[in-house]
């Protein structure tokens, strides 16, 4: 079965991203397909490579990046939400006249249409938020 996962909150402040990660991993282990993980609202903050969590804590960002690499996941960050909150890849950074970028490996920035497409193409859309 094909899933799209929506994540509405950033790392650490809310459990949403943790639960979405555990759900995604369990779905993959059960042999399901993850069509896409879409990061919206503060969820875009899961995609910054500048986090340095305490060593005895989980690394929410790296965990997503690693899962994406292992399973070839499509981790999409909403461009409009990302602009509001300061998440940018090199292209976005240049386009917006910024001097730095912070997107973590395995994530890509794209439009809201990717969420709708996820809803259309997948058998289930599961939303995690606050």
């Amino acid at each position, binding site marked *: 079965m094909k899933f799209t996962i929506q994540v*509405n909150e950033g790392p650490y402040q809310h459990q949403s991203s943790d639960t979405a990660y555990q759900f995604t991993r369990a779905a993959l282990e059960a042999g399901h397909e993850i069509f896409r993980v879409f990061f919206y*609202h503060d969820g875009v903050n899961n995609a910054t490579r500048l986090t340095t969590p305490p060593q005895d804590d989980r690394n929410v960002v790296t965990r997503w990046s690693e899962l994406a690499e292992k399973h070839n996941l499509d981790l999409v960050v909403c461009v409009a939400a990302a602009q509001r909150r300061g998440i940018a890849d090199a292209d976005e950074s240049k386009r917006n006249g910024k001097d730095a970028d912070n997107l973590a490996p395995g994530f890509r920035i794209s439009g809201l249409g990717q969420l*709708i*497409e996820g*809803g*259309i193409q997948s058998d289930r*859309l599961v*939303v995690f938020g606050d």
Partner: protein
Amino acid sequence: MSDTKKFLYVNRKAPYGTIYALESLEVVLIGAAFEQDVQLLFMDDGVFQIAKGQDTKGIENKNFSPTYTALGDYEITKMYVSQESLDERGLTIDDLMPLTYEDEDDDWAEKSSIIVVNNAEIAALMEEQDVVLSF
């Protein structure tokens, strides 16, 4: 699986205190281009999203409420509103913005998009959907 799915946007949060209402509306607008069967549901504090007379100058925030009145032009013509949620807040339909569309099957007559529903009808409405987006 048909190419057209029934999408329900469930709006349960008040505007301005958090961004969910505004960013949900952005999804609705983008989604309109995908020619799916789209419905909006306003319940709990979500009914405040379509309250009349919003004026955001004092909080220096964007007043996005006029956008709801334009959704009819995007062929989004089914806006469900929870009766129980209105009642709990002491609101009536007159406290909401008029949301309308022009019915192409009825000589473009202007009609209200608002459909007031009770909890049992909301339960049935949700069960009809293919995809539920919640904010």
